[in-house]
């Protein structure tokens, strides 16, 4: 990933030194001096080596716009995004599994069909449009929720009321972001449940005369939930993408807003830093899920 990042910078049109200086009509010698200071006169392989060394030391460079350290800018924004993504991920997993299990209990019943319908909508609606709709109707029209940001700036609440205020701001973005994963999780839990219910050991349990409730919630549910855990890591990349869009709609002060501003200002060091940090998080999450899955499911061996 670091190499991909590096190659992207170098393949991009324009010389970093010229971008760095802007179109101020600087003299050729000055451009050359900056190139030397940034190490751009070294061969590519040496530059890659330096770049990797810098990243390993946590140095992601400086923002073109604010001249601050990229790593600092990113770390400042992480908590807000984690709050949004974490809440959406946890709630959509829990409710998704519940809905999926209800569906699997009586497949093709009214409840199941309603769930399928909800899943279809959740699966087709763009996150940012859902956000805009919620914002327009529940917040701006009806005034039920705050429209922008994470805290009410005018009141500057403290203590408990601060947390309540953040929670109040959190509801709409989480709804917008979570619906898709609610749909994904409920479909997946349903399919997984139905698959497990058709296995021999479930038939055996039924043949032993165990009550259906026990077979369903004890024997089947446990094994059916296993594959659902894999969704966690796989979905993280998608949910981060959704978070950027959601943050753009609700002006939520997280990584997404940072990214949006970096896109508009063409602030490349910040963009590259964000790409690197988010990719690393997603790849690590995938690794952790794989290991966790192997740990939970004794059939899998490496």
């Amino acid at each position, binding site marked *: 990933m670091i190499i991909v990042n590096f190659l992207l910078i170098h393949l991009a049109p324009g010389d970093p030194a010229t971008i760095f200086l802007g179109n101020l009509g600087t003299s050729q010698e000055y451009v050359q001096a900056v190139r030397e200071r940034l190490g751009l006169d070294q061969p590519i392989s040496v530059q890659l080596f330096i770049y990797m060394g810098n990243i390993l030391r946590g140095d992601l460079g400086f923002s073109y716009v604010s001249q601050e350290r990229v790593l600092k800018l990113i770390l400042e924004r992480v908590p807000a995004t984690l709050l949004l993504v974490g809440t959406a991920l946890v709630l959509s997993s829990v409710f998704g599994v519940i809905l999926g299990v209800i569906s699997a209990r009586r497949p093709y019943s009214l409840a199941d069909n309603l769930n399928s319908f909800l899943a*279809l909508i959740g699966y087709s609606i763009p996150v940012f449009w859902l956000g805009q709709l919620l914002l327009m109707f529940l917040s701006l029209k009806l005034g039920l929720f705050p429209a922008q940001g994470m805290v009410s700036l005018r009141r500057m609440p403290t203590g408990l009321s601060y947390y309540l205020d953040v929670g109040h701001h959190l509801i709409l973005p989480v709804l917008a972001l979570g619906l898709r994963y609610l749909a994904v999780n409920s479909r997946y839990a349903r399919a997984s449940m139905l698959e497990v219910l058709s296995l021999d050991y479930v038939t055996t349990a039924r043949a032993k005369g165990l009550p259906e409730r026990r077979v369903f919630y004890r024997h089947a549910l446990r094994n059916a939930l296993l594959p659902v855990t894999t969704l966690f890591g796989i979905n993280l990349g998608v949910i981060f993408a959704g978070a950027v869009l959601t943050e753009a709609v609700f002006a939520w002060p997280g990584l997404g807003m940072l990214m949006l501003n970096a896109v508009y200002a063409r602030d490349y060091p910040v963009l590259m830093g964000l790409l690197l940090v988010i990719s690393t998080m997603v790849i690590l999450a995938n690794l952790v899920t794989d290991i966790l899955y192997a740990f939970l499911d004794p059939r899998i061996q490496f």
Partner: protein
Amino acid sequence: MQHRLREFWKSYRRSIAGVVGFAIILALALVAACADLIAPANPFSLSRDSLRPPGAQHLMGTDDLGRDIFSGVVYGSRVSLLVGFLTAGASTLVGILIGGIAGYYGGKLDDLLMRLTEFFMVIPRFFLALVIIALFGSSIWGIILVLAILSWPMTARLFRAEVLRLKSQEFVIAARAMGCGDLRILFEQILPNALSPVIVNISVQVAYAIILEAGLSFLGLGDPASMSWGVMLANAQQFLRQAWWTATFPGLAIFLAVLGFNLVGDGLNDALNPRLKSRVIRIDSLKLEQA
């Protein structure tokens, strides 16, 4: 061939979801094809009527620069369909090639290609696309290229699994015994029998490409030279308070288009893989989907 098509339609017709989806896509394609006839105005032409609500003169109202939103929505269908179909088409070709070679030859080559595929699956697709487009500048063709490069792995895995399943079957062994070359076996014998999951996957890919393009445009990375639904939603963001119509209609268009392709995918799945009746959304592709 005609006979097979009729057979296929007969089993496809049984899925209500599929038929509804097909109707939506057909309508969308018609709108895109006849955009010049349907749209009352040039979607870029400015006028003094800024932020007018929907009415007789402007069916879906106007935006802040007085552009007719209905015309924008009509012309936007071209962008979405173009991006959707070309992305899905290109990524499917690459996926078939890589998945086919990996599955057919196996061994070290398979390992190498599958590691590559996994690498492309875990990297966050949306962000990489976003950064590449921010760096290299935005055009429709650039967006299509980037999305296609980032979305072939799913197809490659699906197709590889099919090739693995088929390559030890009797008709393939017979073809080899008759002296067919590897490429002929792969593309003439195996390919036609391995297409159904790939075809189902195409409609999912189209739906996803449309959403991704809209998302990129929404973040200000759309092609400035074309009127796309995502760009319209990005414009609308500042006027949510005054003008609900600026955001509602383009978004509805994206939603319907994506819904249409998802429903078609569902219908195709029921018709082509009758054993895997999972209704509404196919789990196998859903499980592995990445942004």
